[in-house]
């Protein structure tokens, strides 16, 4: 059940929302509302695959009980064993479900063995709840803990707005909010803000990301036949898709949580405005960077153990980040590229190398745009082909460049089935105009977090939300297709 699905918006969310406040008003126990949210979140999780509910429950149960050991008055040695066992448990769980087939494939490839693949379906959210719980365990081991109950811990792990795609929340910022009695009243202001940012997120996800995805998918599918222009359209489309998809989802998560008076951390802050890769990672998936810094980079020694170790630590963090994003060499390579770029930025900073603002911004954006090709590609060969086509001029059309905007783009022919009456999505004018407009939006306009900060209940915000909503409904109306089967001969 995705946030942008009809069952979620029209059934699940209203029921959970109404149920939550009814329980707060009527139930004698203060815990009842938290338990209601836990049950709702587990239902939300089980809706995807009921079997994996046992996985998340056992993970919650094991981690909570290991953390409880740290609270007991026991020898430090046993605490250390506890934290190591806990981290191994989490990493092993993630490793088994996410990476085991990747390792089997590589072992078979290297040693010419024939171990059977397990074809394990990746449990939803496992990458997110594993990291959250590792942080919880480590902080409890360090003694940086506060009193908590099992129900609020279970909610911290499973809270449905952030469960499946982040942000990677920290127990210290979430559990006190669940317990805070001031958060248990209907807050009209938060509801207005929540709806406002939810609509922005929904528009980003459904209206924009899913539309540019049509070009990105078609381009990646036909990667061998791309011209230079097609290759750039493909890479920009994916760069935009990823941004609007992920940030849109995070906006929706923030909006949904606000309905329950819960504030989720900021995860995106105009990443394509970044002027170097370090800056980019302070703006893109901020909570992941926060986790990797606090629980990997700093424990490895951070920048405290000399320059070379600092570079090695940076590299390790990005290598892990790449591997965390997906079990494949394309992700590893993407992480390595970002690691090298981050090391370069540090080196340039130390030797005092400074580029003009606009130039460093262009280089950063182009670097991000090109490396996303590895992130999306199904093989390194596919990524290399697309990137090489981006830089080897090949027009590949049987009409002159001056007629480029006059005919539908052949490579994006499949997009032509999306008919918006006045135009179809294989129209080069529409493709180029949309990409440029969206890039400008990501480069210069205020982001959704800034819009939320400035949100006031006035006619301007009301109009803005309505325009988004109407635009969104129109796009859904035209994008929704029924497949056709017109082959009559047999």
């Amino acid at each position, binding site marked *: 059940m995705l946030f942008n699905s009809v069952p979620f918006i029209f059934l699940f969310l209203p029921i959970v929302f109404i149920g939550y406040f009814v329980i707060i008003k009527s139930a004698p126990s203060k815990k009842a509302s938290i338990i209601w949210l836990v049950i709702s979140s587990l239902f939300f999780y089980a809706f995807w695959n009921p079997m994996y509910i046992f996985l998340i429950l056992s993970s919650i149960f094991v981690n909570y009980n290991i953390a409880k050991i740290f609270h007991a008055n026991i020898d430090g040695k046993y605490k250390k064993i506890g934290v190591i066992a806990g981290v191994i448990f989490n990493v092993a769980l993630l490793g088994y479900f996410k990476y085991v087939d990747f390792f089997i494939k590589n072992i078979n490839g290297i040693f010419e063995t024939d171990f059977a693949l397990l074809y394990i379906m990746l449990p939803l959210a496992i990458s997110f709840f594993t990291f959250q719980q590792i942080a919880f365990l480590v902080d409890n081991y360090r003694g940086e803990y506060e009193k908590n109950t099992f129900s609020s811990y279970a909610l911290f792990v499973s809270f449905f707005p952030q469960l499946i795609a982040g942000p990677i929340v920290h127990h210290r910022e979430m559990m006190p909010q669940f317990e805070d009695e001031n958060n248990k009243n209907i807050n009209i202001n938060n509801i207005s803000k929540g709806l406002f940012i939810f609509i922005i997120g929904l528009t980003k996800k459904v209206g924009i990301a899913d539309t540019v995805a049509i070009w990105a998918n078609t381009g990646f599918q036909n990667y061998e036949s791309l011209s230079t222009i097609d290759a750039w359209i493909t890479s920009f489309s994916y760069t935009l898709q990823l941004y609007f998809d992920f940030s849109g989802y995070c906006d929706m998560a923030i909006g949904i949580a606000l309905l329950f008076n819960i504030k989720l951390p900021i995860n995106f802050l105009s990443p394509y405005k970044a002027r170097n890769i370090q800056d980019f990672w302070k703006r893109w998936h901020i909570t992941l960077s926060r986790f990797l810094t606090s629980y990997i980079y700093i424990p490895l020694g951070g920048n405290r153990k000399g320059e070379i170790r600092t570079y090695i630590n940076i590299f390790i963090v990005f290598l892990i980040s790449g591997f965390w994003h997906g079990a494949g060499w394309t992700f590893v390579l993407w992480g390595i590229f970002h690691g090298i770029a981050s090391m370069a930025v540090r080196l340039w900073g130390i030797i005092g190398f400074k580029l003009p603002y606009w130039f460093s911004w262009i280089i950063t954006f182009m670097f991000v745009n090109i490396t996303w090709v590895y992130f999306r590609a199904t093989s390194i060969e596919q990524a290399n082909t697309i990137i090489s086509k981006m830089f080897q001029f090949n027009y590949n059309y049987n009409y002159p460049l001056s007629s480029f905007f006059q005919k539908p783009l052949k490579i994006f022919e499949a997009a032509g089935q999306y008919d918006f*009456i006045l135009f179809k999505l294989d129209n080069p004018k529409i493709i180029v105009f949309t990409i440029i407009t969206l890039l400008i939006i990501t480069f210069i306009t205020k982001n959704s977090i800034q819009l939320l900060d400035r949100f006031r*209940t006035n006619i301007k915000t*009301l109009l803005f939300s309505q325009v988004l*909503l109407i635009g969104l409904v129109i796009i859904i109306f035209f994008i929704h297709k029924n497949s056709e*089967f017109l082959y009559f001969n*047999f």
Partner: protein
Amino acid sequence: MNAKKWLILFILSSIIFVAVPSAVVLGFNYYVDPLWNFDHKNKYNTLQASFNERQQKTNDISNGKFNYQSLLIGTSRTTYINQYEFQEKVYNYGLSGQSILEYPYYISYAQERNNQIFNKIYMEMTFSSFKSTTRMPMEHPDFYFEKSNALFYRYTSLFSYDTLQKSLDNINLSTNDKFRGHRAYHRNNVAITGREGNQVANELDKYAEEMKSIKKEKFPVNKKYNDILLTINNKFSDSEIIPFTDPIPVRKLAAMLEVEAYKEGYEKWYKEMVNHFPKVYSFQKISPITENLEYWIDDSHFTPEAGTMMIKALEDPKGNSNIITVVTKENVDMYLKNTFSELEKQIK
């Protein structure tokens, strides 16, 4: 403006500008129902365009009260067979371009949805499916099953420009005096055609010309054919499977079998079928249907009238031996010999 007022205005404007227009579209598409998700009938949906029978018939099965004694499965040819002409209650799951590789999936789906085990499964057998070029279509049957069973699909599919266009097409079809297209359906899964078949003779001439240019030494046999028939036999062993071969216009069959490789393949095909099924009901001999071009819409598709004659023959082969032959392991050689010699006489 305070937050409460903002929220009330937001809800009100959303109702006026979003919910009401959306409801109009939803209501309109619901009334015409081009995707067959509901079962209401009215004067604007008496005729329905068949833009994708896989989705439409699967929706029909998923959402309606599906309770049939037997099932009919096959290609677009079988879509013209009127299911109500059978003496028992039969559902026609004939699908345009259905490959034999799809049969087990669609039969299984219909069986899962049915309240009882099918007594009989009438299964069309085509010579083309015995060719190695037989493929699954781009969309696997699971695609349609999943879509049809997705939560709220019946309602979400109504909010679409594409569905709206199909509704308008259906209103046009239903309110026009005469249907002139290839195929459209009544609300009860009965196909009609507006084609008059006056081009059939030309099409057959063209086909005969094409066949003359074919110089294949060996017929490319579908290597999966044996496995797929085994699967069907094993999987649906509780039902009686009635395999029947599609009628082919005499001139077409004669032209086809003049190619030695095809003749060889044709023989193999019959022998493969009788290896798996005790009886194969053939409509391919020279008969009133295969000889008379009035029973043809084009060189591949017979008319609904011929479909009704086929039903009667399947239900009573002895009484209709002029159009049907029951082919078994024992008589297959004789049947082929007779067919070939009759066709040769026909050519001469």
